[in-house]
């Protein structure tokens, strides 16, 4: 019985405190039938890219509250590409000033979400970005 699930890596790069938001999103994605690899706090971009490679994920979700997104996100994108994983869709959640959103999208980020974003929206966007994968 062949089965294909959307695989998502949820990671929390940077040095800021807690991962409650990331955990809420991870559980919501699980409840939407996805397989979510959760890596925990204080991940470097190198650790995130390595985990994405080993887990062959379709999506990387980054939770960033520290304000360091303009440094962390391009680095993650660069490393994914260097590993041959340019097909991986990157989503960013956290405290992101409005003016940074278009810049992140230009870099190749598929979706950006503020702290209050409904998880249904994130789920719908992930599904829309991966039309070939059924859950």
């Amino acid at each position, binding site marked *: 019985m062949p*089965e294909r699930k959307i695989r998502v890596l949820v990671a929390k790069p940077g040095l800021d405190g807690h991962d409650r938001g990331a955990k809420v999103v991870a559980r919501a994605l699980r409840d939407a039938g996805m397989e979510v690899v959760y890596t*925990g706090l204080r991940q470097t971009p190198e*650790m995130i890219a390595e985990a994405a490679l080993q887990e*062959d994920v379709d999506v990387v979700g980054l939770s960033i509250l520290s304000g360091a997104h303009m440094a962390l996100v391009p680095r993650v994108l660069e490393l994914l590409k260097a590993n041959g994983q340019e097909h991986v869709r990157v989503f960013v959640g956290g405290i992101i000033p409005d003016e940074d959103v278009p810049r992140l999208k230009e870099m190749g980020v598929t979706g950006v979400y503020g702290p209050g974003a409904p998880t249904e929206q994130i789920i719908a966007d992930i599904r829309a970005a991966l039309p070939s994968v059924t859950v």
Partner: protein
Amino acid sequence: MEFVQSVLRGDRLALSRLLSCVENDVPEGRLALDALFPYTGKAHLIGVTGAPGTGKSSLVNQLALQIRKKEKRVAIVAVDPSSPFTGGAVLGDRVRMRDLAGDSGVFIRSMASRGSLGGLAAATAAVTQVFDAAGFEVILIETVGAGQSEVDIARLAHTTIVVEAPGLGDDIQAIKAGILEIADILVINKADRPGVETTERSLRTMLELAHPVRKVFRHHGQMMELNDGVVPQEGLWIPPVQRTVATDGRGVPELLESIERHVAHLRANGDWMRRERARLQAEFDLLLQEALVSRFLAKIPPSKVEGMLQLIQERRISPREAVYQLLEN
């Protein structure tokens, strides 16, 4: 098969994609498994099982660090449960394995159980075969940790480590009965916590019941006794009980020594070969059954099977008679 060549060359992206093909049981994955099979049979498979939260992932992290000191390449397969309602899963074992990041001699793969109940996923064995062929010398397999008797892991692994922790209360007693029988090595993790002595004492008692530690025998008309720690002549393995602290690595070098002793024991008394043979035969039998059933069903009209089921449900014919009739004409 470009996949297979890349995997054998050590290409990590190809390896990762192949693991997905095998996990999803797609034709590409099956063909690759056939092609890789001649390269398998070298790795040492170590299962790590035990109740939720006993420290399996933390221990796997420490074991991998310790094994890496010996220059051996380590693959980790960590299985977590899928939700029976949504089919989704949160795979969280990597959280405890961050010490291994950045080491190209380590490859960690998380798997969801996808409805399997025995503590592993249906494709876990196949995934370990890919790692084996790819040249990983040690493969650590962390089970779901349902705490029930997880025979699947004992069948797959050469060495099965059962992890317990102090202070889990009395419900642990029920768990132990089934799970002790599969343990090659018993670990009391969280040995920094109060209650280790109690846990160790009750474990040893249970162990003695499962494996008589003292061998009593008659010699020149006198009762003789082989004492604890002496490996009897017939090469019985008595599971050692070991304390560890997986958060800082205490006890882990000693645990690795026990693992190495266990491998030496398996090889010396022929159990390594016997286990291998039993595992391969089980795999062969299963595939043969599946193939025969689907070939047989392809030859008869579905309506005929449907009709038989109807007769069975009406209690006009027993299931055994129905099978017999189908096979006979």
